[in-house]
């Protein structure tokens, strides 16, 4: 009986994993397609599409832009989220429920609405669309996430730890920098990396709020609109590999440490 259910479980898990990996395997496979069409049947294997994307200045620029936007906007979101979480967890503010609601509100609103609204308001302010405006939009999207993650990890237990530091003579900024931030480092890093992931793959806001310097998803989108091309599969595979490498590094540094 136990063997039977184990076999069934293995079969089920195998099928779901197959389902989950199917598009990625096909994606990577057809990135080596020898021919201009990334469609079945597979004609042969070639690396020329990889050469093509690495020598494509626009694509590489978009890759760089994506990295900058993702890292900077996530860092800003984390700093703002951390400060706000600290304020709400450690002090009593009037109408704090409402204010907290305001900070997490963008999470429940579709990015399309956020992007459209920002577009019209930025236009009124006279700020030109650029990577900066994309970054602003990404902070709006990621701030609720960073705030929620960091706020959730600020338990009452840490209040005493901060009190202890203050009691021993630490000033407010010392408490925050030497005690609170390092103590919450795992959740701050988790918020940061999650934000980077979201920002990295975000399309709609990046599409609406950029002009000439675009992020990778926008570049891929316009590449796709201009016709079939195994380059899209190649860049998709590269994005996948970069993300997996990133994940492995994160796994080995951040979470390993937390587990020990």
């Amino acid at each position, binding site marked *: 009986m136990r063997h039977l259910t184990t076999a069934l479980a293995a079969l089920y898990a195998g099928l779901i994993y197959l389902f989950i990996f199917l598009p990625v395997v096909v994606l990577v496979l057809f990135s080596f397609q020898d021919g201009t069409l990334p469609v079945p049947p597979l004609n042969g294997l070639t690396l020329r599409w990889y050469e093509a994307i690495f020598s494509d200045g626009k694509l590489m620029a978009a890759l760089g832009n994506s990295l900058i936007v993702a890292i900077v906007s996530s860092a800003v979101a984390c700093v703002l989220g951390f400060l706000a979480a600290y304020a709400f967890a450690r002090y009593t503010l009037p109408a704090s429920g409402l204010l907290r609601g305001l900070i997490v509100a963008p999470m429940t609103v579709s990015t399309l609405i956020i992007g459209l609204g920002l577009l019209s308001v930025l236009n009124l302010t006279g700020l030109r669309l650029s990577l900066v405006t994309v970054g602003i939009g990404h902070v709006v999207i990621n701030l609720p996430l960073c705030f929620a993650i960091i706020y959730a990890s600020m338990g009452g*237990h840490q209040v*005493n*730890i901060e*009190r*202890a*530091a*203050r*009691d*021993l*003579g*630490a*000033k407010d900024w*010392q408490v925050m920098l030497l*005690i609170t931030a*390092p*103590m919450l*480092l795992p959740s701050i890093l988790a918020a940061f990396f999650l934000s980077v992931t979201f920002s990295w793959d975000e399309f709609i806001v990046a599409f609406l709020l950029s002009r000439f310097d675009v992020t990778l998803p926008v570049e891929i989108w316009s590449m796709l609109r201009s016709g079939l091309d195994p380059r899209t599969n190649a860049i998709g595979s590269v994005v996948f590999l970069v993300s997996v490498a990133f994940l492995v590094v994160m796994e080995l540094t951040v979470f390993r440490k937390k587990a020990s």
Partner: protein
Amino acid sequence: MTADVSIRNATKVFGAFRALDDVSLDIAAGEFIVLLGPSGCGKTTLLSILGGFIEPTSGTVSIGGHDMTHVSPAKRPTTTMFQDYALFPHMCLRDNVGFGLRMRGMGKAERYEKAFSLLDLVGLRASSAKKPHELSGGQRQRVALARALAVDPDVLLLDEPLGALDLKLRRQMQDELKAIQKRVGTTFVHVTHDQEEAMAIADRIVVMNKGRIEDVGTPASIYMRPRSLFSAGFMGEANFLPAKVRGTAANEAEVETALGRVALPASAFVAGLAATGRDVTLCIRPEHFRNGNTDVPTVSLGRGRITGSAFFGTHHRCHVAADGTSLTAHLPQTDNPQIGAELDLRLKADSIVVLQDGAGVVE
């Protein structure tokens, strides 16, 4: 280093709740004071006011003669040892203990030296590179003590530091705490709800209830001569026998209880001899119902019948019924009380404490 502490008319109101109600207390330098009371009695609020974590709504605090009422925790000559220890989880023991010195700008070498000497004091020097989560509860408690003492506070505030430990370890730590206090000479203000712990370590105990101080004194005086019903009940088991004063003489009074009339010496009245006609309560510790030793003046409350008995090692705890009143008596371990047996309810006159109803708050 050490300093005296003086609290004057401290009141703290949280919304509609009076956590602390006009409390005044003087603590001598080098004293080991224990604030004792049930949860919600205001003892932790009082400690927090001493530590500067909350400001009193009114009243003042001075330490070593300086007004500290509005001084931030960092600038007070006090440190606090927290109930959950509040060790910095991301720092090793050496850095935990050295943190306060680092905040005072002390150089690394000097700081480490001092941290090591304090870890030595609590017997954890060998573990100085460990992180708090690698330690046992008792060890963490010692690190917290070392960290709090590292900055040479005048007053150390301890917020139920032994609450999380098991009984055996707690006894051991009580002894160590007392020993260390005697060694460093710092004024200790210790909060607990465990009256045994209070008696084990305190020079003086402050019994608190509902935001007020009920009683202050050495462990023995509080136990033997409680000044309020609450204090008497909280410090251990007690029989409370309602009574009415029927007549008074120069140094004794006659009171009437459900168990008959008895004559009591004036010294039994902790708040002074009560006037005729006043309602009072006789407070009798169960272990005082012991026969023999009739060479001192005794008082008899008639006879009672044993209705239940359990052996507690140091004594037999018996339920006794007498004239419709239920009493508890602790009989010597060598006795062999039988259910249904009669018991002579005779006790030494000076072991009875008479409390006037409504009285209790001292000073």
